[in-house]
């Protein structure tokens, strides 16, 4: 989606059929992993009753069976229905990618600093707000969260270098 992005916004990025097949295949694989590990643990009757893999084995089997049915049905689909258009996918990605980066930053900076940056970035990038609005909202929300979790309910959240420097950690 490099060129002619705007005109292409309504074009499908993936068909429902393709995504349906992909998801069913992943579920099938997941079921196979469950069966594999259950067999390793033993799916038969042991000295003290059923072994650890006894119950999960049938769960895995049902996962595989149901995903095979979904897979076969999906392969036989003839419709070209769109799963997600390019514009929609762009919207979803524009939230998913920064949020993933944000989760990565929590470990480095602590949750409060990371959240200030994340909310500010989001408002600036997607909301095109003025910094005069961004700064109070981003700081205010986090001060409120800090008061609520650290002070009132005494639930400690991950903190980073800034809190350590301020003696709050």
């Amino acid at each position, binding site marked *: 989606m490099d060129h002619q992005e705007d005109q292409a916004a309504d074009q499908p990025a993936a068909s429902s059929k393709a*995504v*349906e097949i992909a*998801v069913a295949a992943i*579920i099938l694989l*997941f*079921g196979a*992993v*469950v069966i594999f*590990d*259950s067999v390793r*643990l033993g799916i038969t*009757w*042991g000295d*003290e*009753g*059923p*072994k*650890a893999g*006894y*119950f*999960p084995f049938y*769960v*895995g089997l*049902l*996962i595989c069976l*149901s995903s095979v*049915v*979904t897979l076969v*049905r999906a392969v036989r689909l003839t419709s070209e229905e769109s*799963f*997600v258009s390019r514009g*929609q996918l762009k*919207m*979803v990605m524009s*939230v*998913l990618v920064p*949020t*993933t980066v*944000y*989760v990565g930053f*929590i470990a480095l900076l602590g*949750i409060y600093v990371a*959240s200030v940056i*994340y*909310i500010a970035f*989001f*408002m600036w990038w*997607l*909301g095109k*707000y003025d910094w005069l609005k961004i700064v109070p*909202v981003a700081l205010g*929300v986090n001060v409120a*969260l800090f008061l609520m*979790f650290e002070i009132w*309910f*005494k*639930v*400690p*959240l*991950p903190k980073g270098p800034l809190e350590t420097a301020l003696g709050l950690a």
Partner: protein
Amino acid sequence: MDEINSLMHGFSVALSPFNLLLMFVGVILGVIIGVLPGLGGANGVAILLPLTFSMSPTSAIIMLSCIYWGALFGGAITSILFNIPGEPWSVATTFDGYPLAQKGRAGAALTAAFTSSFIGALVAVIMITFLSPVVAKFALKFGPAEFFSVYLLTFCAFVGMAKGSAIKTVASMMIGFALAAVGLDTVTGQLRLTFGFTEMLKGFDFLIAVIGLFGIGEILETLEEGLAFKGKQAKINAKIVIETWKELPRYWATSIRSSLVGCFMGIVPGGATPASFMSYGVAKRFSKDGAKFGTGQVEGVVAPETAAHAAGTAALLPMLTLGVPGSPTAAVLLGGLLIWGLQPGPLLFVEQKDFVWGLIASMYLGNIAGLIVVLTCVPFFAAILRIPFSIIAPVILVICAIGAYTVHGSMFDVWLMMGFGVVGYLFKKLNYPLAPLVLALVLGDRAEDSFRQSMLLSQGDVGIFFSNGLVGGITGFALVLLFWPLAASMIAKLKARAA
């Protein structure tokens, strides 16, 4: 009247100033959660659950159940003013609620919705008051086989009543069971499905799954629709409320029918959404204004709201008496009980009388609190929805991340939540139901334990699930429900061939 005495005792527990404060806090938080996209009853309660760890279990459940009532009320606000059902069971409310708002009668629609929600809940709470001690006493005699058959019934009901593909319901449910099996096996002490990762030893916590699947997944899905919400203004004042209340007694028959549909469907798992649709359909058929349904009839708001709220409340009955939650939110509340060190199930009624009756009394009080709050604060709640998405979305995502972190104080859980978020988005768009996955994740270990214990008792003979009338009846009913979609499609085919 044993129940009345117990209930009065419950009121004395629930009516402390601190608990009353928690009730109002819970209801207000609940309505906000119900109004905001990406935060529904289930994940809202899941996120706020860690805040209650330091409270007494009774205060904690009062606050959390009030959040639930608030979320149920809140769903109506978004449905009527914005034509956005905040919860699946509010979909039917949009049919007549939004047209009423378009005609400028938003206040009447909201008053009707809140009042009928309240009536629906009240009927269900009265049912819980008198029925749950009976069910609990009965369930005290249950052995592992009976419990497994009840679990089986729960899960088969999901397959049988699924609106979408039964196969996808099975897949989603079994994924939940598989995730529940991850970690240390309590019977043999072996590690299952961990593949050497230490993070997986503890297994998957369903609270993380709920926050990811319902919270992140829903936000991603909402984003596709664009960033703006366009809503109607709501004017609600004492005059509108009283005028609407004068109109409501006309629909007494609809109220009674909807309450009954709701109570019955609520006990069955996954019942609130079908209950609201069913009750709307029934009201449309029996009402003399049935043909006008969909154009903005107050009766068309009364029917689904009464049923949804009755069902949402009734879902707590099997949760309390049998330890089998009827909805994802009831499942989260059940998870709360386990965290506070209470064992849900029939023994609760014997060993934790204060807790049980305090909770039941708080259901009466919480719904009164809810009605007062929503009737007086609608403009404030509607204003929350007008906050632009580019501000509210990152705040909700931050709250989800905090919620996931606080469950065990682990960063790995925050990553898991993101993973569940993507799964939730894909599953929603491909019509895999999420509720069975969450319920299987919650009940997986307990269902497996009761299955293994039954197998041990019978030395591996599956016949134990048919060994007496009770267990055989429940198992049989479960199997009928399980194969219902198959039978229904075969009957349809036969009919088509005959025609």
